[in-house]
């Protein structure tokens, strides 16, 4: 169980759509959910019909909260209609992007909201079976979601003839067992089929050839949790909460050097500098901001000056060369060793590379080895360029986005904080560690 107080510190800037039940006593129970509009959206959806639901979600401007930011309604519309194969709705609850911990409270405090979203999504694409793929480390959430699914079955929201509509939908959880790569949707499908979590060659995309070779939609927990609210408040009202083409709110996970780290539901487009200062309470010990990773560790890092007035929506962040990603805002103060920070990030991607394709398998291991040596004081002057070259050689050449996830932060760190890398080479030690030892 997570420590509610530490995650939900609250902020006046919050606009609570999907986090509104967080903190209610017994918020995970179906009674609490039903008492606050629970499963009303489902009934509405069943009346609207699949096309109506898809259009509503499309118009809401809801974009995938897993990181890619693709319009959810549009994605649903890619599922072929008149084919005899079964279709599947899969919820990606394999949250593992460093800096991201938003799906956890969504499942812990409001599992029914997610389940309702999955059923509605399933209905929209004509699926009769859904799975919630929960990362292995989230065992307690698996139990919570399992209980909620049982409750939903008992009340007739799952199973045969849901709410008397004639629509059938079965839902089950599935546990992972420790693999970041399984957050990539085709790797997740392989994993769900009992195979190693290797990504698949695309095209064909899962919407056409997915689980067991059948049309499948894979959506993130936060994405699906938004669906009931959209149907209840209407696409237009939801879209208005955010910025153009970036409908609604977003759960931002503020972590690192802030006074009030936590998960906050803010409107799309909330400015980054204010997020750090006003929502996160600024940087501890009055230190200055050095850098921010805006959307989980795979996104290019931003220098302090780039955060000023930066609207946190998919398009604005992309415009300055980074990504909104999974909403993991990682804040680094002036004393952060950027070599160490990048090393830790690359160590992660090397550990998590599935090993299927050459540039990612060998490239991430190389970056990890090089940065370790450089940080330990055995760097050579060519190292920054070599690391940069290796990163560019990974970028855009791998089978799945994990390669880019490793290359993009490396490129941004090496370009924006090059002097720190050169300093390590010149000194032959890490100045930050030396300072810490001297101080400590």
């Amino acid at each position, binding site marked *: 169980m997570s420590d509610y107080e530490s995650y939900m510190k609250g902020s006046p800037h919050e606009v609570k759509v999907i986090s509104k039940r967080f903190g209610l006593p017994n918020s995970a129970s179906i009674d609490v959910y039903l008492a606050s509009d629970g499963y009303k959206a489902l009934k509405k959806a069943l009346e609207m019909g699949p096309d109506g639901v898809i259009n509503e979600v499309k118009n809401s401007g809801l974009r995938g909260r897993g990181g890619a930011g693709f319009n959810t309604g549009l994605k649903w519309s890619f599922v072929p209609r008149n084919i005899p194969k079964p279709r599947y709705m899969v919820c990606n609850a394999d949250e593992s992007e460093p800096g991201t911990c938003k799906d956890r409270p969504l499942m812990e405090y409001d599992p029914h909201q997610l389940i309702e979203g999955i059923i509605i999504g399933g209905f929209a694409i004509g699926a009769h079976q859904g799975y919630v793929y929960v990362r292995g480390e989230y065992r307690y959430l698996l139990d919570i979601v399992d209980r909620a699914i049982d409750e939903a079955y008992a009340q007739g929201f799952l199973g045969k003839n849901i709410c008397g509509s004639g629509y059938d939908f079965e839902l089950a959880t599935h546990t992972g067992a420790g*693999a970041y790569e399984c957050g990539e949707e085709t790797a997740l499908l392989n994993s769900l089929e009992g195979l*190693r979590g290797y990504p698949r*060659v695309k095209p064909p995309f899962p919407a056409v050839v997915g689980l067991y070779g059948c049309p499948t939609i894979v959506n993130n927990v936060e994405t699906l949790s938004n669906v009931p609210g959209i149907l209840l408040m209407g696409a237009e009202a939801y879209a208005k909460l955010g910025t153009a083409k970036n409908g609604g709110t977003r759960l931002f996970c503020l972590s690192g050097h802030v006074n009030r780290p936590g998960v906050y539901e803010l409107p799309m487009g909330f400015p980054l500098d204010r997020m750090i200062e006003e929502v996160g309470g600024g940087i501890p010990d009055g230190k200055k901001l050095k850098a921010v990773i805006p959307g989980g560790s795979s996104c290019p890092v931003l220098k302090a000056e780039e955060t000023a007035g930066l609207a946190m929506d998919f398009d604005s962040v992309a415009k300055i060369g980074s990504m909104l990603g999974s909403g993991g805002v990682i804040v680094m103060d002036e004393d952060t060793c950027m070599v160490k920070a990048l090393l830790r990030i690359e160590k992660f991607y*090397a*550990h*998590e*590379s*599935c*090993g*299927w*394709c*050459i*540039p990612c*398998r*060998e*490239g*991430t*291991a*190389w970056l990890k*080895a*090089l940065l370790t*040596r450089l940080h330990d004081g055995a760097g*050579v002057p*060519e190292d920054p360029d*070599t690391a940069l*070259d*290796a990163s560019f*050689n990974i970028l*855009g*050449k*791998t*089978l799945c986005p994990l390669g880019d996830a490793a290359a993009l932060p490396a490129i941004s760190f090496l370009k924006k904080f090059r002097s720190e890398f050169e300093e390590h080479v010149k000194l032959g030690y890490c100045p930050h560690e030396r300072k810490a030892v001297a101080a400590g």
Partner: protein
Amino acid sequence: MPEATVAAPPTNVTLAIDGKPVTVPPGTLLIEAAKQVGIEIPSFCYYPGLALQGACRMCLVSIEKMGKLQTACTTTVTNGMAVHTENEEVRNARKAMLEFLLTNHPLDCPVCDKGGECELQDAVFRYGAAETRFIEPKLHEPEKKFSSLVYYDRPRCILCYRCVRVCDEGMDVNAYGIGFRGAHSEIIPNRGDELECEECGMCIDICPVGALTSGTYRYKTRPWELTYTGTICNHCGDGCKTTLAVRNNVILRANNRDHSGFNGEFLCVKGRFGWDFVNSEKRLTTPLVRRNGKQETATWEESLPLIAARVKDVIAKHGPGSVGIIGSNRTSNEENYLLQRLARAVIGTHNVDHHRTGDFSSLVAALTEARATDRCATMRDVLDAKSILLIGNDPTQQHPLLAYQIRQAVRQHGARLYVVNSSDIKLALRQASVFVKVKSGGEASAVRALAGNDGASGELVLNGVEQLAIFREKLAKESDTVIIFGAEIRGAAVGQLVRWGLSSALSGRTRFIALGDYANSRGAADMGVLPQCLPGYQPVADEAARARYESLWNAKLPESAGKNVREMLDQSGGIKALLVFGSNPVKTFGLAREALGKLEFLCVAELFPTETTELADVVLPAATFAEKSGTVTNTCGEVQALKKTMRQAGTRSDLEILLALARQFGHEWPYRSADDVLHEIVAQVPGYAVALPNLLVGRAVPTQPAGNPPPLERDGLVFSSRDSLFTSGSVSRHSWALNSVDEAKQPHDHIF
């Protein structure tokens, strides 16, 4: 059944690759389209016929209007596509992939078996990616012994997964998996640290680098020190092409180096590793003559006249009908032809036969009677077949290439396989659409039930008597079925099967394959090593046929058929002198040592001491397939050329022995080489009018069955040796490789 409506041929797609226009069918992969215009896009993981991986990223190409580089191995062509395969961006990407690959790949090329024929080496050479900026320690793993024949060196492995796929998709053995992940990923075998498989070595052959190496070849030589000769494998009756790699008269490796022939890259464990008997120290290398009850070494010069003298002596005492000759399943067509000429035209007897491992003569008789002599299927036909009916035999064990062809037909072309067998053979369990399991020895009864269109008794069919009806019903909907039958179907049952197969019960062009065990089982029968048939299955009793050979050979032939192999071996049959060539009848026919005690003279030409040579008065050391030229005919009736690869001091080929023996009997035959004999065969033997140039360039040339052989004389003449994947009659006793693997020690019916 009406022909399915033929869909209009899909419109071809035109695109430009490096500015060269190319038009290919839709669905073609870019990497294949490029080959059409002579552009080779490098790749490691892509392998034609195997599943697509997109793993090695070597085939990245630039496609106009697409932001990122795309893998040519997974991209299908579209109209108007403009592709660049050699621009700077592409070359840099390839160089980058090679630099990545070499980060952990050891540069032990000087001691690597693959050095000189390594795809990674070639790619680095081509893209000049020799310099590395990688200065970190390389990951190291000790080499692993997966089996006595397969070793795995993880650091050299580039994880292209070809081995995993060929074992799964090609062999249907699934012996490989992938362990761990990321940079620590590795290929893992299926039984803990070891392989439990068919040991075919396809994984070694397909490995682009030196990660999988051969237990028989590793660290023995450099590939450029070898002399390569393409010839035909001498084990089973499938007739795979193979390239023997020889250094100093020692075979060091076999693989079908140029992938030519119907087997492509396929070889089974025997083909790839089971040639080492050739260089065995147990080979007979000098003639042996029995003196005072003991076999002593002798010279060829004394042995050959001795044989002639002893045989003449027997003829003088008991007449030519007291002499018998038993031929071989492995010697060449030319040798078999001369063997029966020696019997018929020199000694004057039709007492010439061999261990018949398949009933080719009944198949020929049935096809001739039905005027359907064009209905013998080739190995290639099996691959292309829409439906296949397999009765008896276990091809996975006894005809590995045939099994491979059947699996590919099913997997790649969607062919349906129907199986009748008394055992749960792997093809029946894994590939068959319908499997009728019959009681032991019940295959012929099943054919009778099928052909007679009547129900079978529940006693016959073990897995549900209704299976036979389902079988018949489904087969009736098929067309162009290839019917393959083992030695379980013989004599009258063959006739019944052929008549049914050609009747309206099956539609389209039904074709047939009779299975015989060894490399030239078919050829021995075709060449007339049969007591009732002259070459080309012409009955001995046929006066015109006899007359033709009498004038050709300038000799008078006896008028009635000779003794078959069982009659020759029967002490009461009156045989007094027996000449055995490349055969071990004592073992094959289960004779007691004393069984041949009444013989006055026994001569055996062999490769190794056997149960039969032990009893011989004269033993002649014969040459193996690798030491001779000639032709062999596979079980489908396809002729292919053997090429002399090496020599073994002291031995002589059966051809040389037969020529010399004829001379000892006062017959000067007009042949100086196997080629001379082949010319006579092509000109004279019905069905063998094959185009010699095709043979010369290494093709398999189908023959057309001809002749009108009389029915099978008696039961017990046609039976299979039931070799396993790891045995090959008596020669496999002398193969270290075949005996070294654990799987060979298991009961051979099923290794899985």
